[in-house]
């Protein structure tokens, strides 16, 4: 086929220009700024690996690193397991299933700060309705957002609440791509529902699961708004994630070089997790 380079260039250039300037350029520059000592007022000075060394000796970095990992571990399993179960349930021909599907995606489309405000109210130590119900069944009260023990868990719970419907939609699409013949054949062979789920549904959904995990990691590692609104990293450093720390470092203390290194650290964690999931899911073959 003949090359249509000139036409293609005309179609591509406007986008490429904006993409290179506002996305690709900054992404590459992020790496370089990491090697700079740069406060917003002064000029940038080359600092070699100083920012990276500082990272390893910075106790707050390690706290935020630990919090970020913990946050991923708290949100990822429920976001995969429950969304899959919800999708399997709502894939059946049931009355009201469309209504329930719709309702479960609504949290995802809400402004995260709005979600934060709503949950702060539910979580209120003294007047919150969650502690009220806990008390009715003889439990609690839990200091949801004000105790170091619970704060990160409480925010993870809100994140799960926000993203479950979104993941469910992905799984629903995957379920609808599985041929009904497979289930028919299994039924004829005398397989129970549970067996069909384990032997047909789960293996067939593997590519989707891999994608859902990747998207969930990309989404949750970036969560900033909710934490910012609900606890702003506190109490103490209990909910200080990497992204939270980055914001404080770069845009409140104006240490841009170090902030950039924290951004790179976030990216590295994300890549490591995505790699782990792709290895794990392939090992099962």
């Amino acid at each position, binding site marked *: 086929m003949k090359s249509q380079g000139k036409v293609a260039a005309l179609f591509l250039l*406007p986008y490429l220009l904006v*993409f290179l300037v506002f996305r690709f350029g900054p992404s590459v520059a992020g790496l370089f700024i990491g090697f700079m000592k740069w406060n917003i007022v002064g000029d940038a000075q080359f600092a070699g690996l100083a920012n990276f060394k500082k990272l390893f000796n910075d106790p707050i970095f390690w706290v935020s690193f630990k919090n970020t990992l913990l946050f991923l571990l708290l949100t990822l399993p429920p976001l995969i397991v429950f969304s899959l179960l919800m999708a399997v349930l709502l894939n059946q021909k049931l009355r*009201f299933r469309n209504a329930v599907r719709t*309702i479960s995606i609504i*949290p995802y*489309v809400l402004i995260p700060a709005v979600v934060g405000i709503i949950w702060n109210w539910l979580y209120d130590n003294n007047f919150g309705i969650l502690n009220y119900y806990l008390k009715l069944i003889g439990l609690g009260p839990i200091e949801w957002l004000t105790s170091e023990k619970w704060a990160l868990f409480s925010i993870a719970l809100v994140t799960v609440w926000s993203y479950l419907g979104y993941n469910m939609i992905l799984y629903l699409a995957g379920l609808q*791509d599985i041929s009904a013949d497979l289930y028919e054949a299994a039924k004829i062979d005398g397989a129970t529902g549970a067996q069909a789920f384990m032997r047909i549904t789960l293996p067939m959904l593997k590519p989707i699961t891999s994608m859902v995990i990747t998207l969930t990691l990309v989404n949750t590692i970036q969560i900033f708004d909710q934490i910012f609104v609900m606890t702003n990293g506190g109490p103490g450093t209990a909910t200080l994630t990497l992204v939270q720390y980055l914001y404080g470092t770069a845009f409140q203390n104006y240490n841009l070089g170090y902030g950039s290194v924290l951004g790179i650290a976030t990216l590295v964690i994300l890549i490591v997790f995505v790699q782990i999931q792709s290895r794990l899911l392939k090992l099962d073959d």
Partner: protein
Amino acid sequence: MKLKNILIYIVMAFIGVLFLFPLLWSAISSLKPEAEIMNYPPKWIADFTLINYKSVLAQYPYTGWMMNSLIITVLSTLFVLALTTPAAYAFGRLNFKGKKVIFTLIVSMLLIPIQAYIVPLFLLVSELKLLNTFAALILVAGANVISVYILTSFFKGIPNELEEAARIDGCKDFGIFWKVMLPLTKPAVSTVTILMFISNWNNFLWPMIAIRANALKPLTVGIAQFMGGANSTAQFQYGTSLAAACMAIIPSVIVFLSLQRYFVEGITNSGIKG
């Protein structure tokens, strides 16, 4: 069989309650005067009043924030479509050198979270003297990757026969794009539109960094002031913050419900096909 059905509907009801209850309880609380909100035990019925809503509208430039959000979101969405539709057409339908490399480069950016480049982005935008302007948000929104990805796979899926027929009728490249391809893209463009609308409407971190002037803030950043975050200036009250939150739910839900079908397709397409 019957017991199983009952169980299924109980689970479904539970799921519905799980997602609706926080919204419903917040809406009810926002309609109570501050003293009632703090009443214990909590009551579902009270002397409902709009006082919290009135005080939000009186004390904050709330309608201004909403207008800012609307302007930013509409312009960003249009800008994304204007840039990415032709680009996706080139990737999906045209032959040129380096196509695969450029496309891979673009799509690989999907994995890089904004945090990894937000510092350089800030420096760039401040160098361009664009801080505190809507342009800072709209230009950055234009560098969107997911819409290129979705639209490219859509263009790839259009059968060649249509294009060949148009060429025989004497259509040139631009004619094919305008007269043949664009009319076909309605479903994919609708999908991208709703995805862009929601993501720009909900955008927070970058607007908070790029826009410091209170009058220019979008709703997301304005609303964050109602809680104990770093920018909080308000004397904290549940009534006003819940009212501010509930008013923001309305446009999100209306847009979502009216374009729901495309939204679901969008989520699906953005991940699975392609």
